[in-house]
Structures are given as C-alpha cells and as structure tokens.
C-alpha cells in the first residue's frame, strides 16, 4: 500500500513536472545590518514600546535591583516568580515573596503569582519587540505567560535596530517568544482591548550600560 507520505510527495513532484518552474533568485536588497548610536536606539525602542502600551523604565545596571523593587512595589505585587538562572541580586531590594520556578511546578500554580521578573535575549527597536529564548535567566515559556504582570529586563547592548538584525541573533532551536506590548484584541468592533490571556501589564526595564 502506498503511504500518504509517498502519495503527497509524489503529487508534489507530478505537479512540478506538469507545470515546470523557472529558477528564481531572491533579491535581498531590503535593509539589513543596520546600526544606530546607543541614544538613538534607546529613543526608538522606547517610543515603540510606549506606543504599544508597555511601561518603560531606564536605568544603569547598578540600579537594577532598586528599579525592580520600585516597579513591583508600585504595582502592589507581593508574590513574584523568577526563573532559576536569574541574577539573585536583581531581587535584592524587593521585600516581597520570591519563588524560584522549576519545571515540575504545574502551570496552574503560576496563576497564584502576582508577577514574574525575567531577563531577555534580544530586542528590536524599530518594532518595540522583546525576544525571550528560554535561557536560564528567562525560564520556561509558561513562567512569563501565566502571571498577570511581566517585568522584563533588557540590556541596551542586545537591542538591535530592525527585524533582520534581531533575527540574526536568535538561536533557532530554542523555544522563542516575541513580545510586543501586552496582549491585545481588536475582535469586538475593532476596538482595541489591552490584555486578554497573556500578562495584562508589561514593564520593560532597559539597562543603558549593559
């Protein structure tokens, strides 16, 4: 008996034989490899993040813990989840409850957290996008998804100008999540509603000297 695999692949080959193709060269003369000075990249990234309703703080690396504590206190977050590989000092100034995540904690339990603090892999200024790739300081995908608040630390040195520059820094095999503002829907009469299933609040802390 012919398998579905053999049949489908056979059909594809037949189709191409019936209607022969022409060789195509792919023009890649869109913009790639762009760079911008730090201050311009920061300005662009911030503008785009704010436009899509993320809250943005900038600070030096030395003030990371202080700013994170301020943000969490300001939002009344008392129980925070962190990935196992997050720099412990980042929560050093926070006096709430910090729970380290591990793969054996069932996802529904994450629902009890007020928020989560993670690092990030890459940023894209032109679109205001943050890329998470599951590295130890970012944790598994469920951790930054289930709690209603996500505080995400981005180093300015990891913020690229555009999409091609950012994609070039990704590791394909890693589970990767692109985040551009909090979740949103326009499904009801096209009126934008911020916050459906993902975290309803996204706070981005940009470290300008890291």
């Amino acid at each position: 008996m012919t398998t579905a695999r053999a049949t489908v692949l056979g059909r594809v080959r037949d189709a191409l034989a019936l209607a022969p193709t022409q060789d195509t060269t792919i023009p890649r003369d869109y913009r790639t490899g762009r760079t911008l000075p730090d201050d311009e990249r920061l300005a662009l990234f911030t503008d785009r993040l704010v436009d899509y309703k993320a809250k943005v703080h900038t600070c030096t690396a030395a003030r990371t813990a202080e700013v994170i504590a301020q943000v969490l206190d300001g939002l009344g977050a008392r129980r925070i989840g962190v990935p196992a590989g997050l720099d412990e000092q980042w929560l050093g100034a926070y006096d709430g409850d910090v729970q380290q995540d591990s793969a054996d904690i069932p996802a529904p339990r994450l629902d009890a957290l007020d928020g989560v603090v993670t690092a990030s892999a890459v940023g894209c200024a032109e679109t205001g996008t943050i890329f998470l790739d599951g590295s130890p300081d970012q944790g598994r995908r469920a951790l930054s998804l289930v709690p209603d608040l996500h505080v995400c630390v981005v180093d300015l040195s990891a913020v690229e100008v555009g999409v091609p520059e950012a994609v070039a820094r990704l590791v394909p095999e890693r589970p990767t999540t692109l985040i551009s503002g909090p979740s949103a829907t326009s499904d009801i009469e096209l009126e934008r509603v911020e916050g459906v299933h993902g975290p309803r609040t996204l706070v981005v802390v940009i470290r300008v000297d890291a």
Partner: protein
Amino acid sequence: MSSTFLGMPATPPRSPYGTGNLRGDRKFPAAAHDELRNEQLRRNLGKATHTIRAKRLNVTGELPDWEQLRDAGSAIKTDTMNRLPELLEQLEQQVTERGGTVHWARDGVEANEIVTRLVRATGSTEVIKVKSMATQEIGLNEHLESAGITPYETDLAELIVQLAHDKPSHILVPAIHRNRDEIRQIFLKEIPGVDPRLDNVPAHLAAAARAYLREKFMTTKVAVSGANFGIAETGTLSVVESEGNGRMCLTLPDTLITVMGIEKVLPRYQDLEVFLQLLPRSSTGERMNPYTSMWTGVTPGDGPQDFHLVLLDNGRTAALADRIGREALNCIRCSACLNVCPVYERAGGHAYGSTYPGPIGAVLTPQLAGMHAAKDDPNSSLPYASSLCGACFDACPVKIDIPSLLVELRHQHTEESGTTAEKLAMKAAAGVMKRPKLFTAAQKAAELGRVLGGRDGKISHLPPPFNGWSDSRDTAAPPKQSFRSWLASDEGAATMRAAADEYDRNQQEEEK
C-alpha cells in the same frame, strides 16, 4: 504502484467534493444578494475594513524598503514552491530529529482522522484550539465533535463564532459581522456561569472570555494549532497572534498537534526576517503583533513533551500543478486583500461559502476544491466575484497577481462549461492581461470615469454568471468597479477584439 514510477506525471486531485468547508451551498450572486440586505453587516464590515486599511498604510509607509521586502517575500515563496519536495522532506527530518512526529494527510478527511486518533491516544475528551484556517478548511471541529471530543476555540473572535454556531466571515477578525450587543447576548446565553450583569463594553466582554478560557487553558491536556510558517532548515514552527491564547495553547498542554498546509514551509530561518515584517504590517497594521511563538520539536522541561505535525495536501498539489494558479499558494493569509476589496466590503465573507473569503478566497477555493461544471458547483461563481480593479494586487505583501489569476480561472471555467460568449471575452481579456501597457490603458480609461457602469452610473448588467449579483443590487457602482463595464462598452470591446486577434496571431506564430 503510482504512475510516477513510469515517468508519467498524473494531475493531482482536488479536495474531495462534499468534504470540509471549501464550498458554500449556493453560488456567490445568490449568497451575496442576501448578505447585501444585512445593513448591520455592511456597517460593521465597512468600519472594519477602512480602519485596518488606514493602519496598514501607516505602518507600511514607515518602511522605506517595503517594496524590496515584498519582492523578497514573493521570490522566497516562489522558490519554496519550486523546491517543495526537498523542503518538505527536510522539514520532516528536522522536526523528527528534534523529538516531534510528522504525519502526512492526502486530504482533509485523512487529516481529521489522524488528529482524532492522536487525541484519543491521550485519553482526553477535550482540546483547546488556536485559530487555524487549515483546521477550519477541513472541518476538524465538526469531526472531533462527532467522535465525542469537544474542541474549544480560544481566539476571542473564533470563540464568538463557535458559541454562536456561526461561521467566520474574515480571515483576521472572523466575528467582524457581529456587534457588541450581539456578542453580549451570545455570551449571556452560551458561557456557563457568566455574570448575568455583563454589559456590552468590549473590555468587559473580553474579560468574560478570559475568565471562561483561563480554566480551559489550565486543565486541558491537548492543543491543536495551525502554523504561519514551518522552517525546513531547522524544523521551527511559528504562530503569529495577539491575545496570548496561542502562547497558552502552545505552552501549557502535554500534547500539541499542529496542522499545516504543505505550502506554509519556508526554506531558511533567515527568511523570517522578511515575513515577520510583511505579515504583521499587512495584517493588523501593527509594526509587530503582540505575540509570536516559535518552537522546534520538543524542548525538555518547557512546553508540550509530545508534538505532532500534520502536513496537509487537500488540493494544494492540484493548485501547484497549474502554472498560473499556483501563485495563490504563496498567500500568507494576512487579509489585506479582503480589506481593500469593494466586492468583499459589500458582500461580506459568508457569501464566498468557503473558509477563505475575499479576493484570495476567490482564487484559492476553486483551485483547492475545483469548479465542477457538471455539478453546477457554487465555486464556479467565485472567479466572477471581482471587478478586477487590482486593489488586491497592490495590497498583497507577496505580490500575488490576483486579477490575472481570476481571469485565468474564468477562462478555465468557460472552457469547462462551454459558454461561448464568455469564452470570447476571456480570450480577449487574456490578451490584454499579457500586455501590461494595454492593461494599464484599459484601467486608466476606466478610472477616468469615462465609461462608468450603465447610463445612470449604476452597474446594471454584467455577463453571466455574475449577472445575478449585479441585477439584484441597486447600489451605485463603486468607481473602481468600472473595468468590467469598460470591457462591455463599444470602446472596450474594440480594444479587446484587437488584443484577442493580436494574441491569437502571436500564439500561432509561437506554435510555428
């Protein structure tokens, strides 16, 4: 043994007649006739399409290299189709090496059976679903229900459509035909335990959906998704979304089953740099959609540990076998062509009778499912559901020449059904289409308004089978709908005749 072994290629079959959701129960003119009477629908649609259109123009205008991105996107897709066999095999190999299981489905019936079998093997009687056109196309939900498995749509619009026992009417915003009051009524009636004081504020309606679905996300063990892209080089799959329901479905369950049309494969990971710019800007008119998930096989300790990819044909190879028609397979389902189409705006998505509405639906549906002349197939009316104004071509991020595809399909339909008058007109149109200069002149003439519609500026008569539609409506012809009318005028007829003659002469010379 298949005939391929003898070196004789066989024409691949279309999606089997009478299966899935690729065919309405009546022709476009009749269906559009009823939809045209629905004032609410037309108001909602008009508002939606114009809003998204403005947003799209804003964000595409922001990029000085937008045209270069379109060229790249178009070429990557064409290259993909040219190399489809090797790319599919590469994708399969990569997904398998990374711990996933790949299944192949000749048609929707087979895909439905595979998914049902996989769900049954988990012991679960429920699945959560991320908006997926492929599973809508094959009627997966209906099939799962008949097998005692309850599918929960988790995209807000899909949820509205599902709770209302309705059909989607737009690729991006499937419930766009419903207003807030209707949605409130649907939720009050269909969501168990919903607060009876729920009002019609969109934020409150969204919150009600969040509360209802939260529990499903946390407890359901199996998810079914579609895929926007599948990267052959790395085995990476991708879902582009806004609400976070996609992330929930792709992350929390133990088992993930992804149904992907074979045309969704892309050669290289790097190609994402093009499509992650083209898709969100063309679709929602955003610089980037809120969430995009990319996963490769199974990642220990993160997300579903059991991953299945179902590769679906269901008529795609039949489209691929058509030198002109295959371009429709390049579609990335952004819905930009719907939002600029004057016919879609008036008729709405349901009139097309298929999962794929609008201009792309008018070319894709007949190719996937066929236009069966002998059966008086509703799909045979779809290539006529257009004024050939060309707005869809201009909007398309991968530059699919939808007007030319429509003309080609009209040609095929008239060849098949033997309508001589139409045959002639189509021959002439084919001649014009092959001459960009002449085509531009024709369009210009039409745009100048010299030859608008009938005497009163209304479209009063169009050739069959589109006449049913034009005869049944009494709204003024939108200015851009005039190419067709120009075609029917003396001037148009003369130009077309000349073009047809010239075309025939050229053909004869080529044959010599």
